[in-house]
C-alpha cells in the first residue's frame, strides 16, 4: 500500500504544479477533489473507530456483563452466546444480511442487489452515508446485527441448549432483525423518517430495531423456556460482579461508537450524540442507585451498572435528536423506570428473565423511543423541513405532537413483530432440536455440558 500512498503524494505534487499555470476552473475541481478526500478520510477515521467500538461492546463487553451475572458453572456458556454471534452475525450479514436490510425494495425488506456484498466497495453509498466508503457503512451496520441477538441471550441464560441457541439466533436474525432494520433505516422502509417511509419514526441508533426487538423477544424466550431449576427459591447469585463491571464500562465506552457513530460522520452531530449518550448513562446509573438506596438502604454496584446500561438503552433512539439537559432527564427517568421493571414488575409477573434483558432493553427501549418523540428538537437535528427548507418542529415539546404518535406506531410494530416471530421460532426450534438442556446438564452447568470445559481451574 506504500506505493499507492507515495503515488497519491506525487500526483498531489504534480497537481499543485499544474495549478500554477492552468486556467481558473481546472484547479477548483482538483481542490474540491482534495477536500472531498480529506472530508471522507476524516469521517471514515471516526467511523472505523466506531465499528471497532461497537464490536467491542459484544466482545468482550456484553460477554463479560452477562458472564459475570451467571453462576460460575455457566460463565463460558453465557459468554459463548455473545462470542458465537460475532461469527454467525458476520457470516449471515456478508452473505445476505446487508442486502436484505439496506437494499432497495419493499417497505418491509430489502432486495438482493448486495448479495455477497456484490458492489459494496470503497465508494460511498450516497443514500445512506455520502462521505464514507460503503464498506465502512456496511461494517458499522453489521456490528449492530451482531449485538442485537446477543442481547436476547440474557433471557435464556443458564438453560438453553447451544445448538438450539444457534438455530434460533440464525432464524431470528433473518426473520426479525433484517426486516426491522430495513423498515427503520433502509431506503423506502416503512418507518424510515428520512428515506420516504410512510410512518416517519425517529430512531437514531436503534431503540426499536435493536432494543425493543431484542428485549421483547427476550421476554417471550423467558416465558416459553420456563424458569431455571431452583429459581427463585435457591439463591442464584452473580458469580463475579467484577466481570460485570468491566463489561458494563466497556459497553458504556463502546456505546459512544454505537450512538455517536450513528451520525455516520465526525461532525458536530456526532459530538452532540456523544454528549447525550454519556449524560443519560450517568443519570440513569444515579437514578437506579438512588432507588436502591431508598428501598434497601444501600446502593449497589450491580444497581449502578444496570442503571448505566438502562440509560444507554433509553437514549439510543434519541441520541442525535435531543439536547444535553433533556438527555440528563431521560437517563434519570429511564434508570428509575427500569429499576421498577426489573425489581418490582418481574417479581410480580414471576417470569425468569435470567439477566433482565427485557426489563432493561425491552422496557428501556420502549420508553426511549416514545420520549424521543417528546424531546427531539430541530436545534439539534433539523430532521424535518418544509418546502422552503426551513426546519419544522420535531418533538412534542416543540409542538409536533404527531411525532409521539409515529413513535408509538413504530414501538407497537416492533413489539408485535418481535413477539410473534420469536414465539413461532422458539416452537420450531423446540420441535427440531429441543430448547432446553436436560436437568442433569443444567445442574452440571452449561460449561461442562455444552462445551466440555470449565471457566476457572483455581486449584493450585
Amino acid at each position, binding site marked *: 500500500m506504500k506505493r499507492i500512498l507515495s503515488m497519491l503524494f506525487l500526483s498531489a505534487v504534480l497537481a499543485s504544479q499544474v495549478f500554477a499555470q492552468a486556467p481558473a476552473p481546472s484547479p477548483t475541481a482538483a481542490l474540491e477533489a482534495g477536500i472531498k478526500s480529506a472530508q471522507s478520510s476524516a469521517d471514515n477515521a471516526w467511523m472505523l473507530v466506531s465499528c471497532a467500538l461497537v464490536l467491542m461492546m459484544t466482545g468482550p463487553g456484553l460477554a463479560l456483563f452477562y458472564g459475570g451475572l451467571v453462576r460460575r458453572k455457566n460463565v463460558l456458556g453465557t459468554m459463548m452466546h455473545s462470542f458465537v454471534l460475532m461469527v454467525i452475525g458476520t457470516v449471515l450479514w456478508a452473505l445476505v444480511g446487508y442486502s436484505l436490510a439496506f437494499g432497495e425494495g419493499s417497505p418491509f425488506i430489502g432486495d438482493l442487489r448486495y448479495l455477497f456484498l456484490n458492489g459494496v466497495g470503497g465508494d460511498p453509498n450516497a443514500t445512506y452515508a455520502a462521505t464514507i466508503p460503503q464498506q465502512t457503512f456496511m461494517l458499522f451496520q453489521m456490528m449492530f446485527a451482531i449485538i442485537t441477538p446477543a442481547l436476547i441471550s440474557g433471557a435464556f441464560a443458564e438453560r438453553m441448549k447451544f445448538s438450539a441457541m444457534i438455530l434460533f439466533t440464525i432464524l431470528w436474525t433473518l426473520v426479525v432483525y433484517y426486516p426491522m432494520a430495513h423498515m427503520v433505516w433502509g431506503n423506502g422502509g416503512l418507518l424510515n423518517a428520512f428515506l420516504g417511509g410512510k410512518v416517519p419514526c425517529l430512531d437514531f441508533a436503534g431503540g426499536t430495531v435493536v432494543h425493543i426487538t431484542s428485549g421483547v423477544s427476550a421476554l417471550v424466550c423467558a416465558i416459553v423456556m420456563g424458569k431455571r431449576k*431452583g429459581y427463585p*427459591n*435457591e*439463591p442464584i447469585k452473580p458469580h463475579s460482579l467484577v466481570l460485570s463491571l468491566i463489561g458494563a464500562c466497556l459497553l458504556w465506552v463502546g456505546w459512544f461508537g454505537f450512538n455517536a457513530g450513528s451520525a455516520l460522520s465526525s461532525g458536530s452531530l456526532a459530538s452532540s450524540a456523544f454528549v447525550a449518550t454519556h449524560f443519560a448513562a450517568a443519570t440513569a446509573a444515579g437514578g437506579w442507585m438512588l432507588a436502591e438506596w431508598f428501598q434497601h438502604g444501600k446502593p449497589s454496584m450491580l444497581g449502578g451498572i444496570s442503571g448505566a446500561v438502562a440509560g444507554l438503552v433509553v437514549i439510543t433512539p434519541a441520541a442525535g435528536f435531543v439536547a444535553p439537559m433533556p438527555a440528563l432527564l431521560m437517563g434519570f427517568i429511564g434508570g428509575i423506570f427500569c429499576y421498577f421493571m426489573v425489581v418490582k414488575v418481574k417479581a410480580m409477573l414471576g417470569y425468569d428473565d435470567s439477566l433482565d434483558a427485557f426489563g432493561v432493553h425491552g422496557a428501556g427501549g420502549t420508553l426511549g423511543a416514545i420520549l424521543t418523540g417528546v424531546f427531539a428538537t430541530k436545534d439539534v437535528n433539523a430532521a424535518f423541513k418544509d418546502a422552503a427548507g426551513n426546519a419544522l418542529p420535531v418533538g412534542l415539546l416543540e409542538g409536533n405532537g404527531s411525532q409521539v404518535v409515529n413513535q408509538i406506531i413504530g414501538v407497537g410494530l416492533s413489539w408485535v413483530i418481535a413477539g410473534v416471530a420469536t414465539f413461532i421460532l422458539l416452537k420450531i426450534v423446540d420441535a427440531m432440536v429441543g430448547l432446553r438442556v436436560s436437568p442433569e446438564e443444567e*445442574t*452440571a452447568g452449561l460449561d*461442562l455440558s455444552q462445551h*466440555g*470445559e*470449565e471457566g476457572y481451574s483455581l486449584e493450585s
Partner: protein
Amino acid sequence: MKKIEAVIQPFKLEEVKEALKAIGIDGMTVTEVRGHGRQKGHKEVYRGQEYQVDLLPKVKIEMVVPSARAEEVISALTAAAKTGKIGDGKIFVYDVVDAIRIRNDERGESAL
C-alpha cells in the same frame, strides 16, 4: 458427643440445611471439597488434549451433636440429601472427646 460428617452433592446443600434447622440443629461447618467414588467423572478437552476429571465437586458438612441425637440427625440428613443416584455421598460418624465454646469457655454438650 458425636461428629456427623456428611459428604453430599453441592446442589443439595440448601435442602439439607433446611432439614437440619427443622430438627433444631443449626451448628454446622461446611467445606467445599472434591470427591471420588463410584460416580464416574466427566471429560474435558482443551485444544484436543483430553482430561478425565474424576474428582467431582462435593460439599462436606460437619456437625458435632449430643450422642443421643446422632441417629435423628443422620436420618434427617439422609432423607434430605438423597436423590437415589450414584454420587449422593456418605455420612461418617466419629466420637468427640470434648467441645469448647471459645466465646465463653463453656465445655461439653452445652458448648454445641
